[in-house]
Structure formats: C-alpha cells, structure tokens
C-alpha cells in the first residue's frame, strides 16, 4: 500500500498561514491503514491545531472529515460541502489524494499534512517496509520474488556488489539499522527454488523510460472506458 508520515505540526501551521476556517481531511484507505492519515488521525491533528492556535492567541475554526478515498472524484463529492465551507484544506491523504482535492476544488487551497514516502508492506503491526518502486518494468520473476529496484541500495540489476557481507548491505538505514542485501536474499531463495542459474543470467540495462524518469505516466484501458 501507499504509506506516508505526518509532517511536523509547525510545518503544517506555516502552510495554513493566516487562514481562519481549516478543514483537516483524512483519507480512509492507504494512509488510514498505515495509521497516518485516516479519520482518527485527522481528528487528532484538528485537535492539535485548535490547541496550538489557542496557545498562540489565534482565532481559528478547525473541523475534520475523511473521504473513503481522496483519489477518486466520486468520493470527493461526498465531502464537497465541508471543503467548500473552509478557507483551506489540510489533506492527510497521499500525494495522489492531495492533488485530486486541489484539482477538484481549485482555487481553494489544499495543503499537505503528510509526506508520502513509499509503497510498503506491513511486515508486522506498525512496521512498514518498502517493497515496490513502481518502476513500470517488473523483474521479480527473475529475482525470486524480491525487488532489486527498491531492496538493493544501489538498485543493481546484476548483483550483488562488493558491499555485501554476511547477508547484509554495506549501507545502513536512516536509524543506522542494518539492511539485508537484496541480492543475498535473491540467491538464497533461488537456491530454495532450484533456479540458481538465474543468478548468472545477464540482465541488460532496464527500460527506465517506463519509470518516473520517462516523464509523467498515463494508463488507459480502452476496453473499460465508458461508451
């Protein structure tokens, strides 16, 4: 799923500026599952904004709501009345939801309250790990179901590199935690699958133009378009 982390309160307050009527809009799909921007979290942020405004002597009206999915026009219709009554919307959805809101309700200001950070899987309760880079040219059929694009620190297509030791990557995570070497994991699983030969298969340069480096992407399913 798409995961996001909330921005610091001071940054959100700066984005809101001197607007008086604030609507905190949660999204009850991906960001609710990752406990960042669902209705519960929207209510908490609204409460924090009211408390901080009172502390700073600013008069604001802060309400909260949540759309089932902020990235779909139909669900935005359901919260339109509240949005239109506000001077500024603080959206807790992922970048897609925030942009959908900004487009649908333009020129009303829609500000992000979260930083969308990855396509992650909940490894355990309250822990998410990056699993997909949406590169547009999936290779995991050859790499034992392990994505080298996001799980190898160098996104190597023909790993491992010399920085792999004892199954770990030479790079550490943001909190200095050890990271598994993706190519070590790939080798171990290829052995389990009896497909060791895949390890020495040369993978030519990947089609990165299908990734975000090829400009904004678009997908159309002609057979499903309304007639």
């Amino acid at each position, binding site marked *: 799923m798409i995961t996001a982390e909330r921005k*610091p*309160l*001071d940054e959100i307050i700066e984005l809101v500026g001197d607007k008086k009527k604030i609507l905190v809009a949660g999204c009850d799909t991906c960001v609710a599952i990752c406990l960042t921007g669902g209705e*519960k979290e929207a*209510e*908490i942020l609204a*409460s*924090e904004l*009211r*408390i*901080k405004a*009172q*502390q700073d002597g600013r008069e604001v009206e802060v309400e909260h709501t949540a759309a089932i999915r902020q990235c779909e026009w139909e669900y935005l219709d359901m919260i339109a009345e509240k949005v239109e009554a506000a001077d500024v919307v603080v959206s807790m959805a992922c970048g897609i939801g925030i942009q959908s809101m900004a487009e649908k309700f333009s020129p009303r200001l829609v500000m992000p309250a979260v930083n969308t950070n990855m396509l992650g899987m909940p490894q355990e309760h309250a822990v998410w790990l990056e699993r997909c880079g949406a590169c547009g040219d999936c290779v995991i059929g050859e790499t034992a179901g392990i994505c080298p694009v996001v799980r190898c620190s160098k996104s190597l297509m023909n790993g491992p590199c010399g920085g792999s030791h004892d199954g770990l990557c030479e790079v550490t995570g943001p909190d200095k935690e050890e990271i598994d070497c993706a190519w070590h994991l790939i080798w171990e699983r290829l052995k389990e699958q009896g497909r060791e030969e895949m390890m020495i298969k040369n993978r030519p340069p990947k089609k990165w133009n299908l990734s975000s480096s090829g400009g904004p992407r678009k997908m159309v399913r002609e057979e499903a378009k309304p007639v």
Partner: protein
Amino acid sequence: MADTDVKAPAAEAGEAAAEAADETPKKPVDPNFEPEIIVFACHYCAYAAADLAGSMRLQYPTNIRMIKLPCTGKLEVIHLLKAIEAGADGVYAAGCLEGECHYLKGNLWARKRVNHVKDLLQEVDIDPARVEMYNMSSAEGAKFAAAATEFTERIKQLGPSPLRRDGVNAHAAAREALGGTAMPDDPTPSGAATAQEGHAE
C-alpha cells in the same frame, strides 16, 4: 511501603518531558487554585480501588473526576487530547498492574498512548506532565488515594491549564469524546464490589 509508592514507571517520552519542564522557573503555587483532573479508570482495578479507598475512609483530593472504562485499553489518543483541549488541568489513566490486565495487554496499550499524547502535547506547548499513566490493583485503595494526591499536587505546581475556558466542562467533553465506550458510574458501592468479584474470577 509498596502500597504508597505510586511513581509511574519511567516512561521514555514522559521522562524527557519532565526534564524539559524542570528547566522552566517554578511559579509560586496559587493556594486558591483547584485543578480539574479527569481520571480514566479501569472497571477491574482503579475504579474498584477508588471504592475501596472510600470504604477505608482514606482522604484524597476532591479534584479528580472519574470516568469508568471497561479497560484502559479502550482509551484512545483523541480521548486524552479532547479532555486537555476542553481545559482539563490534568488527565490520567489508571489501569491494572502490568501483566495483570483482565484483557491481557490493555494497560500496556494505554501506557503507549499516554506517552504518545505527551509527545503531541509537547508539539502544542502544553506541559506533558499534565497527562500520566498509573497502575494499581483493585485491592490497593491506598495506592489509588496516593496517586490522586500525588497527581493533584503535581498539577497544582503546574498551575491552571492555559486552555481553560469559562463554560466548558472538561469532564463532560471527555465523556462525550468516549461516547458509548465510557461505562455508567456505579450508583452504589455494591456495584464496585461486583467489579472486584469479577476480577477474582
């Protein structure tokens, strides 16, 4: 005496916050300040301990306003925050001893949430010491009284909440935030006695 040792076990966020709070110069305590303190009490322990404290004729401050929950694990971040927002001078959760939750881990969840609220309060410039988590068994009436006394003294030292507003009842606001989660108060002490029996099962 273990019974009166009510210091809440060190909570990482709480400790850091308490250190930060210590740096501010202490204001003189207003002798006329009577804090409004909301207590979220577990049906199986703290609520029964309060009843026992009454039966034992123990003295404790009248500043506390109790809200009974089936377990402190039902307490969510927003419930604590709403009580603070409505102007409560202090808020604490009182749950079972760690390892003795009727629902196994409810009190451990509550402690985590209380600590998270401390972090949130720091973001909005409210002293995190205004929220706390206590643990006690239903047999510890003296511990209940000591916790109420210790926390009330702490809040008196901190002074009134800057969020206090005339005409806003923090207790009612906290109850409203909880909705159906809060249990009705027991009309007579016999109700609390039933709770003790339930705990013994």
